Protein backbone atom coordinates (compact mmCIF):
# COMPACT_ATOMS: atom_id res chain seq x y z
CA UNK A 1 0.00 0.00 0.00
CA UNK A 2 1.25 3.45 -0.77
CA UNK A 3 1.59 5.91 2.07
CA UNK A 4 -0.62 8.82 1.06
CA UNK A 5 1.04 11.11 3.55
CA UNK A 6 4.44 10.53 2.05
CA UNK A 7 6.22 13.44 0.40
CA UNK A 8 5.98 13.30 -3.40
CA UNK A 9 7.85 15.62 -5.74
CA UNK A 10 5.61 17.71 -8.03
CA UNK A 11 4.55 15.96 -11.23
CA UNK A 12 5.37 17.46 -14.61
CA UNK A 13 1.95 19.12 -15.00
CA UNK A 14 1.78 20.33 -11.40
CA UNK A 15 5.14 21.98 -11.84
CA UNK A 16 4.01 23.56 -15.10
CA UNK A 17 0.84 24.92 -13.41
CA UNK A 18 2.79 26.46 -10.50
CA UNK A 19 5.38 27.96 -12.83
CA UNK A 20 2.83 29.47 -15.20
CA UNK A 21 0.66 30.82 -12.36
CA UNK A 22 3.59 32.42 -10.57
CA UNK A 23 4.84 34.00 -13.79
CA UNK A 24 1.39 35.45 -14.59
CA UNK A 25 1.11 36.88 -11.07
CA UNK A 26 4.65 38.24 -11.15
CA UNK A 27 3.97 40.00 -14.43
CA UNK A 28 0.80 41.51 -12.97
CA UNK A 29 -1.55 39.86 -15.48
CA UNK A 30 -3.61 38.09 -12.81
CA UNK A 31 -3.63 37.99 -9.01
CA UNK A 32 -3.67 35.06 -6.58
CA UNK A 33 -7.15 36.28 -5.60
CA UNK A 34 -8.34 35.88 -9.23
CA UNK A 35 -7.14 32.28 -9.24
CA UNK A 36 -8.83 31.50 -5.92
CA UNK A 37 -12.10 33.06 -7.10
CA UNK A 38 -12.04 31.05 -10.35
CA UNK A 39 -11.57 27.84 -8.37
CA UNK A 40 -14.55 28.84 -6.19
CA UNK A 41 -16.68 29.52 -9.27
CA UNK A 42 -15.73 26.18 -10.76
CA UNK A 43 -16.68 24.36 -7.55
CA UNK A 44 -20.05 26.18 -7.48
CA UNK A 45 -21.00 24.59 -10.81
CA UNK A 46 -22.67 21.32 -9.94
CA UNK A 47 -25.24 19.04 -11.63
CA UNK A 48 -27.94 20.63 -9.44
CA UNK A 49 -27.93 23.50 -11.94
CA UNK A 50 -28.70 21.14 -14.82
CA UNK A 51 -31.38 19.46 -12.68
CA UNK A 52 -33.10 22.85 -12.21
CA UNK A 53 -33.24 23.30 -15.97
CA UNK A 54 -34.69 19.81 -16.49
CA UNK A 55 -37.31 20.27 -13.74
CA UNK A 56 -38.41 23.57 -15.30
CA UNK A 57 -38.69 21.95 -18.74
CA UNK A 58 -40.86 19.17 -17.24
CA UNK A 59 -43.13 21.75 -15.63
CA UNK A 60 -43.45 24.33 -18.40
CA UNK A 61 -43.93 23.25 -22.03
CA UNK A 62 -43.20 26.77 -23.33
CA UNK A 63 -39.85 26.73 -21.54
CA UNK A 64 -39.17 23.21 -22.84
CA UNK A 65 -39.58 24.43 -26.42
CA UNK A 66 -37.40 27.51 -25.87
CA UNK A 67 -34.75 25.28 -24.28
CA UNK A 68 -34.66 23.09 -27.37
CA UNK A 69 -34.62 26.11 -29.72
CA UNK A 70 -31.85 27.98 -27.89
CA UNK A 71 -30.56 26.32 -24.73
CA UNK A 72 -28.24 29.15 -23.75
CA UNK A 73 -30.98 31.81 -23.86
CA UNK A 74 -33.48 29.60 -22.03
CA UNK A 75 -31.01 29.06 -19.16
CA UNK A 76 -30.63 32.84 -18.81
CA UNK A 77 -34.38 33.05 -18.37
CA UNK A 78 -34.11 31.17 -15.09
CA UNK A 79 -31.05 33.09 -13.95
CA UNK A 80 -28.38 30.64 -15.07
CA UNK A 81 -25.56 32.41 -16.88
CA UNK A 82 -24.03 29.73 -19.11
CA UNK A 83 -22.68 31.86 -22.00
CA UNK A 84 -20.37 31.71 -23.88
CA UNK A 85 -21.36 28.03 -23.86
CA UNK A 86 -23.76 27.24 -26.72
CA UNK A 87 -26.09 24.65 -25.38
CA UNK A 88 -27.87 22.04 -27.48
CA UNK A 89 -30.56 20.17 -25.54
CA UNK A 90 -31.53 16.77 -26.93
CA UNK A 91 -34.78 15.32 -25.72
CA UNK A 92 -35.52 11.70 -24.85
CA UNK A 93 -38.87 10.20 -25.80
CA UNK A 94 -40.42 6.73 -25.64
CA UNK A 95 -38.86 6.14 -29.10
CA UNK A 96 -35.48 7.88 -28.76
CA UNK A 97 -32.68 7.75 -26.21
CA UNK A 98 -29.83 10.28 -26.43
CA UNK A 99 -26.33 10.00 -25.02
CA UNK A 100 -23.38 12.41 -25.03
CA UNK A 101 -19.70 11.75 -25.64
CA UNK A 102 -16.66 13.70 -26.80
CA UNK A 103 -14.37 11.35 -28.70
CA UNK A 104 -11.62 13.92 -29.29
CA UNK A 105 -11.21 15.19 -25.73
CA UNK A 106 -13.72 15.78 -22.93
CA UNK A 107 -16.11 18.58 -24.04
CA UNK A 108 -18.85 18.73 -21.42
CA UNK A 109 -21.54 21.28 -20.43
CA UNK A 110 -19.57 22.38 -17.37
CA UNK A 111 -21.66 25.47 -16.50
CA UNK A 112 -24.63 23.10 -15.97
CA UNK A 113 -23.06 19.81 -14.91
CA UNK A 114 -19.79 20.88 -13.28
CA UNK A 115 -16.59 18.92 -13.60
CA UNK A 116 -16.96 15.79 -15.77
CA UNK A 117 -16.61 12.39 -14.10
CA UNK A 118 -13.31 10.59 -14.75
CA UNK A 119 -14.94 7.85 -16.81
CA UNK A 120 -16.30 10.48 -19.23
CA UNK A 121 -12.71 11.41 -20.07
CA UNK A 122 -11.48 7.83 -20.27
CA UNK A 123 -10.29 6.40 -23.57
CA UNK A 124 -12.63 3.42 -23.13
CA UNK A 125 -15.81 5.52 -22.80
CA UNK A 126 -14.81 7.91 -25.58
CA UNK A 127 -13.95 5.22 -28.11
CA UNK A 128 -16.64 2.67 -27.22
CA UNK A 129 -19.67 4.94 -26.84
CA UNK A 130 -19.68 5.77 -30.56
CA UNK A 131 -18.81 2.20 -31.59
CA UNK A 132 -21.08 0.08 -29.39
CA UNK A 133 -23.40 2.37 -27.42
CA UNK A 134 -25.83 -0.37 -26.43
CA UNK A 135 -23.09 -2.48 -24.86
CA UNK A 136 -21.72 0.53 -22.96
CA UNK A 137 -25.18 1.59 -21.74
CA UNK A 138 -25.73 -1.96 -20.51
CA UNK A 139 -22.56 -1.71 -18.46
CA UNK A 140 -24.06 1.40 -16.85
CA UNK A 141 -27.13 -0.72 -16.03
CA UNK A 142 -29.28 0.62 -18.84
CA UNK A 143 -30.60 -2.04 -21.18
CA UNK A 144 -32.38 -0.40 -24.13
CA UNK A 145 -35.01 -2.26 -26.14
CA UNK A 146 -34.34 -2.62 -29.89
CA UNK A 147 -37.40 -0.45 -30.70
CA UNK A 148 -35.75 2.51 -29.02
CA UNK A 149 -33.43 4.43 -31.31
CA UNK A 150 -30.07 5.28 -29.74
CA UNK A 151 -28.74 8.69 -30.76
CA UNK A 152 -25.10 9.22 -29.86
CA UNK A 153 -23.95 12.84 -29.91
CA UNK A 154 -20.22 13.34 -30.42
CA UNK A 155 -19.45 16.91 -29.36
CA UNK A 156 -16.46 17.79 -31.48
CA UNK A 157 -16.61 21.56 -31.92
CA UNK A 158 -18.44 24.62 -30.56
CA UNK A 159 -21.68 23.14 -29.17
CA UNK A 160 -22.17 21.52 -25.78
CA UNK A 161 -24.89 18.95 -25.16
CA UNK A 162 -27.28 18.05 -22.41
CA UNK A 163 -29.89 15.30 -22.44
CA UNK A 164 -33.42 16.19 -21.39
CA UNK A 165 -34.60 12.91 -19.85
CA UNK A 166 -38.24 11.85 -19.73
CA UNK A 167 -40.25 12.88 -16.70
CA UNK A 168 -40.76 9.80 -14.49
CA UNK A 169 -44.32 8.51 -14.13
CA UNK A 170 -45.95 9.05 -10.76
CA UNK A 171 -44.77 12.64 -10.34
CA UNK A 172 -48.04 14.43 -11.12
CA UNK A 173 -48.45 17.57 -9.11
CA UNK A 174 -44.80 17.65 -7.99
CA UNK A 175 -43.24 21.09 -7.74
CA UNK A 176 -39.97 21.92 -9.53
CA UNK A 177 -37.81 21.51 -6.46
CA UNK A 178 -39.10 18.02 -5.82
CA UNK A 179 -38.78 17.10 -9.50
CA UNK A 180 -35.19 18.38 -9.58
CA UNK A 181 -34.29 16.01 -6.73
CA UNK A 182 -34.90 13.09 -9.14
CA UNK A 183 -32.54 14.37 -11.81
CA UNK A 184 -29.10 12.87 -11.39
CA UNK A 185 -26.02 13.88 -13.35
CA UNK A 186 -25.79 10.66 -15.37
CA UNK A 187 -29.35 11.05 -16.68
CA UNK A 188 -28.30 14.38 -18.25
CA UNK A 189 -25.32 12.67 -19.94
CA UNK A 190 -27.62 9.87 -21.08
CA UNK A 191 -26.06 6.87 -19.33
CA UNK A 192 -28.87 6.61 -16.75
CA UNK A 193 -32.52 7.46 -16.19
CA UNK A 194 -33.79 9.88 -13.56
CA UNK A 195 -34.47 8.35 -10.16
CA UNK A 196 -37.85 6.73 -9.57
CA UNK A 197 -40.28 8.81 -7.44
CA UNK A 198 -40.58 5.96 -4.89
CA UNK A 199 -36.92 6.51 -4.02
CA UNK A 200 -37.99 9.88 -2.58
CA UNK A 201 -41.04 8.65 -0.69
CA UNK A 202 -39.14 6.79 1.98
Amino acid sequence: MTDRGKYQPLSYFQLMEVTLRELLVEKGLITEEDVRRQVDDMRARTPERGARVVARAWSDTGFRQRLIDNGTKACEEIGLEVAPMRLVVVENSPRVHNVIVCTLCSCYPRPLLGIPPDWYKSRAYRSRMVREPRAVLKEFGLEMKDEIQIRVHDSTADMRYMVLPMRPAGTDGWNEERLASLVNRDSMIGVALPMAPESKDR
Partner: protein
Amino acid sequence: MQAQYVTHYPLQEKPLFEAGERVRVRNAAPPGHIRTPFYIRGCAGEIERLCGAFPNPEELAQMRDGLPAKPLYRVRFAQKDVWPDYKGSPADVLEIEIFQHWLEKT
Protein backbone atom coordinates in the same frame (compact mmCIF):
# COMPACT_ATOMS: atom_id res chain seq x y z
CA MET B 1 -31.73 27.46 -43.28
CA GLN B 2 -31.75 29.34 -39.99
CA ALA B 3 -28.69 28.79 -37.78
CA GLN B 4 -29.41 27.71 -34.21
CA TYR B 5 -26.85 30.21 -32.93
CA VAL B 6 -26.31 33.38 -34.92
CA THR B 7 -22.76 34.74 -34.66
CA HIS B 8 -21.29 38.04 -35.86
CA TYR B 9 -17.75 37.58 -37.06
CA PRO B 10 -16.51 40.23 -39.51
CA LEU B 11 -15.95 37.54 -42.13
CA GLN B 12 -18.21 34.54 -42.49
CA GLU B 13 -18.53 31.99 -45.23
CA LYS B 14 -22.02 31.38 -46.62
CA PRO B 15 -23.67 28.08 -45.74
CA LEU B 16 -23.85 25.75 -48.75
CA PHE B 17 -26.01 22.95 -47.36
CA GLU B 18 -29.63 22.60 -46.35
CA ALA B 19 -31.17 20.49 -43.60
CA GLY B 20 -31.84 16.96 -44.86
CA GLU B 21 -29.25 17.21 -47.64
CA ARG B 22 -26.97 14.20 -48.16
CA VAL B 23 -23.28 14.94 -47.63
CA ARG B 24 -20.03 13.05 -47.36
CA VAL B 25 -17.17 13.85 -45.01
CA ARG B 26 -13.94 14.43 -46.93
CA ASN B 27 -11.54 11.56 -46.64
CA ALA B 28 -8.44 13.66 -46.10
CA ALA B 29 -5.60 13.56 -43.61
CA PRO B 30 -4.00 17.02 -43.44
CA PRO B 31 -1.48 17.64 -40.67
CA GLY B 32 -2.32 19.80 -37.66
CA HIS B 33 -5.15 20.16 -35.16
CA ILE B 34 -8.29 18.73 -36.80
CA ARG B 35 -11.72 18.55 -35.15
CA THR B 36 -13.02 15.96 -37.61
CA PRO B 37 -12.39 12.54 -36.02
CA PHE B 38 -10.78 9.89 -38.19
CA TYR B 39 -13.62 7.42 -37.74
CA ILE B 40 -16.12 9.68 -39.54
CA ARG B 41 -13.95 10.66 -42.53
CA GLY B 42 -15.30 9.25 -45.79
CA CYS B 43 -18.75 8.52 -44.28
CA ALA B 44 -22.04 9.75 -45.81
CA GLY B 45 -24.88 11.19 -43.77
CA GLU B 46 -27.39 14.02 -43.79
CA ILE B 47 -27.42 17.56 -42.49
CA GLU B 48 -29.39 17.71 -39.24
CA ARG B 49 -29.04 21.43 -38.54
CA LEU B 50 -26.83 24.46 -39.06
CA CYS B 51 -25.27 25.34 -35.69
CA GLY B 52 -23.84 28.70 -36.77
CA ALA B 53 -20.53 30.04 -38.09
CA PHE B 54 -17.41 29.67 -35.96
CA PRO B 55 -13.69 30.38 -36.36
CA ASN B 56 -11.84 27.54 -38.04
CA PRO B 57 -10.17 25.51 -35.25
CA GLU B 58 -7.39 24.41 -37.62
CA GLU B 59 -6.39 28.08 -37.97
CA LEU B 60 -6.94 28.92 -34.29
CA ALA B 61 -4.49 26.15 -33.40
CA GLN B 62 -1.86 28.04 -35.43
CA MET B 63 -2.52 31.22 -33.38
CA ARG B 64 -4.38 32.85 -36.29
CA ASP B 65 -7.85 34.43 -36.08
CA GLY B 66 -9.70 31.57 -37.79
CA LEU B 67 -11.55 33.95 -40.13
CA PRO B 68 -13.56 33.75 -42.24
CA ALA B 69 -15.75 31.89 -39.76
CA LYS B 70 -16.86 28.53 -41.16
CA PRO B 71 -20.43 27.25 -41.10
CA LEU B 72 -20.69 24.40 -38.60
CA TYR B 73 -23.30 21.67 -39.08
CA ARG B 74 -24.61 18.76 -37.11
CA VAL B 75 -24.54 15.79 -39.41
CA ARG B 76 -26.54 12.63 -38.75
CA PHE B 77 -25.16 9.23 -39.77
CA ALA B 78 -26.76 5.80 -39.65
CA GLN B 79 -24.55 3.75 -37.33
CA LYS B 80 -24.47 0.93 -39.90
CA ASP B 81 -22.93 3.38 -42.40
CA VAL B 82 -20.18 4.27 -39.93
CA TRP B 83 -19.47 0.76 -38.66
CA PRO B 84 -20.38 -1.97 -41.20
CA ASP B 85 -20.47 -4.59 -38.42
CA TYR B 86 -22.53 -2.40 -36.03
CA LYS B 87 -24.48 -4.46 -33.51
CA GLY B 88 -27.76 -2.87 -32.55
CA SER B 89 -30.88 -1.51 -34.15
CA PRO B 90 -30.51 -0.43 -37.82
CA ALA B 91 -32.33 2.75 -36.75
CA ASP B 92 -29.49 3.82 -34.41
CA VAL B 93 -27.72 7.04 -35.37
CA LEU B 94 -24.68 9.10 -34.57
CA GLU B 95 -24.69 12.90 -34.70
CA ILE B 96 -21.56 14.97 -34.87
CA GLU B 97 -20.47 18.55 -35.57
CA ILE B 98 -18.60 18.99 -38.85
CA PHE B 99 -17.33 22.22 -40.41
CA GLN B 100 -18.40 23.03 -43.96
CA HIS B 101 -14.92 22.70 -45.47
CA TRP B 102 -14.94 19.02 -44.44
CA LEU B 103 -18.19 18.29 -46.30
CA GLU B 104 -18.96 17.60 -49.94
CA LYS B 105 -22.17 16.80 -51.79
CA THR B 106 -22.78 13.12 -52.43
